């Protein structure tokens, strides 16, 4: 085994940091928390301009280490990066399964950091059981007519596009008869209502009311949409959004040093444990990226990394809040808040990490069945 990053990767990290440093400051971060969109156009454009988004796009022949590095540097800096992370995933899916004209029109704009895309997958009755969705696309002449609604369409309010999973043939079995579309958000018939959350991020319910689109916006084959979303899940899991322990520990340690609490042996013991779990989360994530890079399936490894990292994040954020006492209850920007309120934010923000992008239980099912070889339980 070897744990050294190549010079090329070190150079990439330097370049990523330079972009982040140039475009992210306290005001940009505060704006993201105020507006509920973890989104910064300036950062996206800057990353796009220097070609970093094209490098970090997931997919065959791409370097998954670049995606990991971009995500982890953004996490460390607290940079509003979610909309860019989502754009990268869809760019990768379109690159793998889209048409040349979709790539010209959409992928290029996503990788330039100029346009953004939201995921329209989950529905009120189709959460973990995603194949239970009921949004329908029906053929009408040479068009499709879409009707239905989607839950948790995060970033819809700042997106140009929606990546939409629909049912086109309800009789084609559990995984058959799905069709994926990439659709402009300003297409007539699409609307969004906000979902406000216990953290600073806003999500949306989106509605699709007689939305008409042509065949040119079908991603992959009609009725073969499940294959398309499967590509997407493989890209997402266990490579991005697993690095939150490092900034949590940094902020806690700074606060603890400032208050003198850092001399408390009980706190020191727990800080050491957070440091260990941060290392483990990083190693498991790097392993997922490395496995994908050598061209092997990384699905269960992604599940392993995701479950460990997100559960550890929740556990340690809650510890940090308790350890900080009453000041740990104060929110972002409140005067006197422990770690400027980041600890309170981490407790809130860590909550959805164990269901967003596949819940802990669904990932454990995946590990049990596909990694340990246990029989299917459901």
């Amino acid at each position: 085994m070897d744990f050294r990053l190549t010079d090329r990767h070190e150079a990439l990290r330097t370049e990523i940091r330079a972009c982040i440093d140039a475009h992210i400051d306290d005001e940009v971060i505060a704006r993201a928390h105020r507006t509920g969109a973890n989104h910064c156009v300036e950062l996206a454009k800057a990353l796009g301009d220097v070609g970093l988004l094209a490098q970090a796009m997931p997919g065959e022949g791409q370097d998954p280490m670049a995606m990991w590095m971009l995500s982890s540097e953004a996490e460390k800096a607290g940079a509003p990066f979610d909309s860019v992370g989502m754009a990268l995933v869809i760019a990768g899916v379109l690159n793998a399964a889209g048409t040349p004209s979709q790539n010209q029109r959409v992928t290029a704009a996503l990788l330039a950091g100029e346009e953004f895309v939201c995921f329209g997958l989950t529905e009120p009755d189709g959460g973990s059981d995603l194949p239970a969705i009921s949004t329908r696309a029906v053929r009408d002449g040479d068009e499709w007519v879409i009707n239905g609604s989607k839950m948790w369409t995060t970033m819809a309010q700042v997106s140009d596009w929606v990546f939409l999973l629909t049912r086109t043939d309800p009789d084609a079995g559990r995984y058959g008869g799905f069709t994926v579309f990439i659709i402009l958000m300003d297409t007539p018939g699409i609307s969004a209502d906000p979902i406000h959350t216990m953290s600073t991020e806003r999500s949306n319910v989106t509605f699709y009311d007689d939305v008409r689109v042509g065949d040119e916006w079908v991603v992959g084959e009609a009725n073969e949409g499940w294959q398309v979303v499967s590509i997407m899940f493989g890209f997402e899991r266990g490579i991005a959004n697993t690095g939150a322990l490092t900034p949590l520990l940094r902020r806690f340690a700074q606060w603890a040093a400032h208050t003198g609490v850092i001399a408390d042996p009980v706190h020191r013991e727990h800080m050491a444990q957070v440091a260990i779990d941060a290392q483990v989360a990083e190693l498991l994530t790097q392993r997922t990226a490395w496995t994908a890079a050598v061209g092997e399936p990384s699905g269960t490894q992604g599940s392993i990394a995701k479950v460990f990292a997100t559960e550890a994040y929740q556990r340690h954020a809650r510890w940090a809040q308790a350890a900080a006492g009453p000041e740990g209850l104060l929110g972002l920007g409140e005067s006197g808040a422990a770690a400027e309120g980041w600890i309170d934010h981490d407790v809130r923000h860590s909550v959805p990490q164990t269901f967003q992008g596949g819940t802990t239980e669904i990932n454990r099912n995946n590990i049990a069945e596909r990694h340990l070889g246990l029989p299917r339980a459901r």
Partner: protein
Amino acid sequence: MALDFSLSADQEAIADTFGAFFAKESPVDVVRAAEPLGYSPQLWQKLRSLEAPGMAAPDQEGGGGATLSALVVVAEALGEAIAPVPLIEHWVASRACPAPEIVSGERIAAIALRPADADGTWRLVPGGAVADVVVGLDGGELVAVHSPAPMAAPSNHGSAPLADRSAREGDRVVLGEASELDPLLDMWRVLTAAALVGIAERAMRMGVDYVLERHQFGRPIGSFQAIQHGLADLPALVDGGRFLAHKAAWAFDEGMVDGAGVIDMDEGNVTEFAPLAAMAMLHAADAAAVSTDRSLHYHGGYGFSLEYDIQLYFRRARGWANIVGDPSRERRRLADLLWGPAKAMAGR
């Protein structure tokens, strides 16, 4: 070189050789026959025929000069088989005391993890029950004491060959300053971590095999989701332990010692050997504890009976780990390595 989570060709060859060796020569009946002392002289002799006892000693002393990255692979195989031989302690002691009869394995060496107490006794030395030579601290010096092995151990949780040994009586040689023990202890931590990863891995697989075989309510208990999820947490712990042990070994082999490596907690970047060794040991101890605990639990009542092998692993997961001392204290020691000593930071 670049990030690589596969074993190198050398490591692969070592894993094959020692995996096959322990599978053949240290099956559970050998482990059981070696209880309660936790030592099989025949197995040790077979290791000698592979020249395994001398692997860690420098090549200019006739040893194998193996890298720590190679030794962790052997240590994991040893842990998987819970082999009743003090190979890890012997290796570590042989780094400080590479006498020919130690390198050859004719005599067994052990390492005292704690300094001798006021009356000159090293308490509960791992491997001490069977070692002809013990290396450890006494009165501020690193010494080696040659004296007859007691060949008996107090009854203990992990059936390990522990014994109190005198740091004064016997043939006593001063090896160097007290500080020279620190890298040896870190090496012991990394190798013991690898052995604990082997225990965790095997216990996980024993659990999976058992729940596939055992039927209740007309189906394999491994089809119950509660059991599946308890087992599904284990790969992260096992793999994490393995990667930490390998990363620590890599850091050592690359010379990331005495401040040559990085400790940047703002970036979460740690490549310095000592803190990685501490992390590996602490995490692997947890991994082995959780893995053997869950696996035993999913064996139901049978897991508690002597007849089933999981109890052998359960006891060694604790017995091999806790010998280093209270993990809370080890974590505080790690905090000192990562953030500097407590006092220096206070009020800053």
